[in-house]
């Protein structure tokens, strides 16, 4: 029970790994609602392969399918992607400020090294 959300996110991330599935999602984002045959058109793969990809996307909750007469309409459902984004954002919130501080620290170190070098050069010039 506790892990339900975790498993659901795993399905979203593994669904997104495949470029064909990402292309399908990107197209659905543009066109809202498409039939399976229209979705399959741009791909060099056969219809059953496209159907399999759609199954994976549907299992992850990324698309919804509905029957209209003899055709099946496919729509995007954005909620799982939003959840995936939120999950990744937790790591962004962890690392992003840390890397900003890393940058500031390294820049201070760089400034000190330069100052030391300038000091050494000036000292060298004076002793000449």
């Amino acid at each position: 029970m506790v892990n339900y959300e975790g498993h659901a996110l795993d399905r979203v991330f593994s669904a997104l790994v495949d470029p064909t599935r990402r292309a399908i999602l990107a197209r659905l984002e543009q066109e809202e609602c498409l039939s399976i045959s229209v979705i399959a058109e741009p791909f060099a793969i056969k219809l059953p392969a496209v159907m399999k990809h759609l199954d994976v996307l549907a299992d992850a909750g990324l698309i919804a399918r509905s029957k209209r007469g003899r055709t099946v309409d496919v729509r995007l459902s954005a909620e799982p992607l939003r959840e995936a984004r939120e999950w990744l954002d937790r790591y962004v919130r962890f690392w992003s400020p840390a890397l900003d501080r890393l940058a500031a620290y390294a820049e201070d170190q760089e400034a000190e090294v330069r100052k030391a070098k300038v000091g050494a050069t000036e000292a060298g010039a004076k002793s000449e």
Partner: protein
Amino acid sequence: MTSLTLVRRIAARPSIVFDALTTPEGLAAWWGPDDLPVIKAEVDARVGGGFRVRFRTLDGQEHEAFGECLEVVRPDRLVMTWRWAVGGEPEERGRTSRIEIELRPIESGTELTFTHADLRNAASKAGHEQGWSGSLVKLVRLFGDTPSTTDQV
């Protein structure tokens, strides 16, 4: 195979940035999500060596992460495993992910590319292809309604 990539341009030479990543003083100066002092920072930056950092977040919780150095090429590249010992993200506890850091010299100093890879190892071995994280970003940005950050995700 989810990964997160962040890029920073730093006005310091790569060797200085590398040392900030691989010395206890360096790690202690920047580690953690909040601007709080690090409790413990240990690092042995050699292949087979490791790191361990304990830190506190603003909510008072203590967290500890540790890992092993897989690649150490000063000043270009650092690869480490990453695991939570205490605290951290509950779903990631007990999982090992990977941190890859590339330092590239640029005119103004260093371009740092930080990747936290293998987050949420999916059971499927379907893919580990190049460009996946960039594509995810585009997708998630298109559909997500959270404000976008300047980072690449």
